[in-house]
């Protein structure tokens, strides 16, 4: 239903980008090549020498506008978003507010300083104290042209990549996944409106994934490719890249929550269930940072099964305020099939229990005593599993090792640090409070890597 819809929606936007043209205006590799070259020329004229301070101000102001109900592009996003993205209006509004709320002048400066040592090092040579002691300075520059290959229907990762590209002064070509171009397109227009010259260094298009001639044209012109998607897709893309191209691939990741027994007093458990429900509802659980399941330690004041029931209550309450919205028949069939599976288990064994919405598939909570890691079929379908301790959890989740992004952790302060150390050594790249899984700070290191740090190239100046 959603596929290709964004191209059909007449939003009354001017034709600034390839994505704005109707499908009958066919793309060709030649058009792509020319578009890429124009982007690079525009970058030299308008973006390369723009002071970081100015880009930061523009981005921060834009982010502020996106949170304003009167901002015309936000209005468009919320008016047409449910149809184009499948997210309900309240879910979309909350997701966008959270996302843009993170982008402030301060957070952008901090991000650059965190990754590059000083937020002015993109403008010219500048030394950190350590470098100065060594009598040298350095400046960083972003790629000439970043080619983004985006996946999935979650707009935030794509928007964040675009923000990073603007910060490091790169021209950007964003190839959106089919059915996932709606919000990136609006964001691009908002950037164009805010600063036409910055907008002129940006291009967006859609073509079916794996279209080699198109992608070859982009790969030839770009000097850095940032791709998200399935691991096989990334490997395949990488194999087609000409030598010398920088490749930043963000593959499959899963996330989950972990709750220590000492934070399971009744009052705390209710609070945790509220926050966990937020994590499940955010972007309908569809992102890498969304929880597949919550591990709950046994022997707390509130038993894991009781926590699961509390969570079901909270998700149900949230559903009334922020409905999940419609999903495809396939997605809905996945949920129905899984519900059958767990219903059958629950009526025949004592250690499985399921709570679910009546009359539709809008939410499901499955509790199991069996701690073995299980993937959710998403769209607000969450597992709760009982576990003895962190050690047992790591054993039963071994199959996900190396693919875990975020663990939302609720534990007493005294234990938390040790637990984080254990998780870090196990391979987890982000630990956050429950309720914040889909809300990483600006300085979040995606997949444990410095985001801007991986984009830039340094020029050292020895004095």
């Amino acid at each position, binding site marked *: 239903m959603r596929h290709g819809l964004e191209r059909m929606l007449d939003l009354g936007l001017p034709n600034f980008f390839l994505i704005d043209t109707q499908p009958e205006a066919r793309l060709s590799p030649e058009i792509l090549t020319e578009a890429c070259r124009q982007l690079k020329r525009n970058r030299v004229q308008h973006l390369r020498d723009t002071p970081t301070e100015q880009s930061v101000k523009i981005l921060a102001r834009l982010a502020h506008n996106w949170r304003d109900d009167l901002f015309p592009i936000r209005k468009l996003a919320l008016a047409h978003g449910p149809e184009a993205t499948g997210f309900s209006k309240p879910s979309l509004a909350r997701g966008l507010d959270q996302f843009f709320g993170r982008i402030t002048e301060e957070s952008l400066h901090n991000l650059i300083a965190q990754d590059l040592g000083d937020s002015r090092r993109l403008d010219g040579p500048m030394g950190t104290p350590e470098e100065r002691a060594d009598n040298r300075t350095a400046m960083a520059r972003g790629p000439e042209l970043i080619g983004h290959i985006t*996946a*999935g*229907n*979650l707009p935030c990762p794509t928007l964040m990549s675009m923000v990073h590209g603007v910060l490091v002064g790169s021209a950007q070509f964003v190839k959106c996944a089919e059915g996932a171009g709606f919000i990136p397109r609006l964001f691009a227009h908002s950037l164009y409106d805010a600063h036409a010259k910055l907008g002129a260094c940006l291009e967006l298009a859609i073509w079916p994934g794996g279209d080699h001639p198109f992608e070859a044209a982009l790969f030839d012109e770009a000097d850095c490719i940032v791709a*998200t*998607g*399935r691991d096989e897709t990334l490997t395949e893309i990488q194999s087609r890249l000409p030598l010398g191209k920088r490749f930043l691939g*963000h*593959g*499959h*990741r*899963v996330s989950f929550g972990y709750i220590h027994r000492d934070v399971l007093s009744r009052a705390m458990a209710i609070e945790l269930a509220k926050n966990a429900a937020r994590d499940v509802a955010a*972007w309908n*659980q*569809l*992102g*890498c940072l*969304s929880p*597949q399941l919550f591990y709950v330690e046994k022997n707390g004041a509130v038993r894991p099964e009781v926590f699961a029931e509390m969570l079901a209550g909270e998700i149900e309450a949230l559903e009334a305020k922020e409905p999940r919205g419609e999903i*495809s*028949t*396939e*997605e*809905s*069939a*996945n*949920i*129905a*099939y*899984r519900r*059958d*599976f767990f*219903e*059958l*288990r*629950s*009526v*025949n064994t004592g250690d499985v229990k399921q709570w679910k919405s009546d*009359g*539709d*598939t809008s939410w499901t909570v499955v509790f199991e005593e069996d701690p073995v*890691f*299980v*993937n*959710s*079929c*998403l769209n607000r379908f969450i597992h709760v599993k009982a576990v003895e301790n962190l050690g047992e959890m790591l054993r039963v989740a071994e199959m*996900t090792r190396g*693919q875990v992004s975020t663990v939302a952790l609720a534990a007493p302060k005294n234990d938390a640090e040790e637990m984080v150390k254990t998780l870090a050594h196990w391979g987890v790249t982000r630990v956050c409070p429950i309720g914040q899984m889909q809300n990483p700070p600006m300085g979040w290191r995606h997949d444990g890597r410095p985001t801007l740090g991986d984009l830039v190239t340094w020029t050292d100046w020895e004095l």
Partner: protein
Amino acid sequence: MDDKFTIITERVRAFIGGEDGDFDELARDLFALQYEHVEPYRHLCESRGVTPKNANAIAAIPAIPTTAFKEFEITSLPPNERTTVFHSSGTTGQTPSRHFHNAESLHLYETSARAWFKPHMRTDEVESIITLTPSPKEVPHSSLAHMFDIIHPEVTPMGRVGEDGKWDLETDVLDSLSQPDVGPVLLMGTALSFLQLADRLPRHRNNIVSHGSRILETGGYKGEKIEWTKTKLHEFISREYGLKHEDIVSEYGMCELSSQAYDTVAGQRGPRRFRFPPWARARIVSPEHGREVSLGETGLLEVIDLANVRSVLAVRTADLAIRHADGFELIGRATNSEPRGCSLNASDLDNRRADEARSRTHA
């Protein structure tokens, strides 16, 4: 208890034979027996508040998901009476679906299979029948091999189990087909077997089968990572074997069922719609609310199969189908949907279902 099952088996057999009978009444009586004797099913019914007393309409009879056949023994037969068991195909190391039979229920299965095969394949118009599946002796747990073996008195099996355990073709299958005096033949097999056979065809020779030959394909790629649509498969077969589209018939079946659906009558043109026999009814239900969808809409396929006497008559599959007035159209499996976003979706459960999607359960 066996008396009751024997009596109802005979009633179903008579119904299959065309004697007057009432589908709904048979379904309700069967449900009552199965409710009593198939424990995991009874638990499911109880949790949904459905009993033989209050299930007045057959729509109220709960359908058991096909995964139940993996997880539980969905049978009223005590272990010592189970003479045959059919397994779904799947990857080694994973529990397959299991459908248990005794002599009586197996006989009913055979009656059902033959009765609906005959009017669809019109075997009197071909001179020989070859199945590309191994013989039941080699694969005793394959319902497909069994079905092809009993479907007609003169079936020659030309399939075998290869050294790697995978299904393969006999080396002399081409010779059998290329004899000068071979007339029209009916070839039956999985989708994969027709790909395997095509690989062996000599180049520039697409008239390997004589004019008037027929093909019955059951889908299924046996764990191979091929997922062709029916259209693509039929185009391939038509091209490689030199047959008209209407000479290719698709069958839909699975080890969890005792009746099969066919999508056309051999040689007959027109839209393809899968249809079960009068003793089995398909229902396309919305995954959202479980009620039957309107005509033209997509949902999950459920089947009430009266020939499933010793298991459970109402089965919910993971197959998505479009409901039509004159049958249904398969459009894939629930599991084939790509999860949005980039989250992994490869749990054990999903792997199992993905494997099923690649190789239809019927084999």
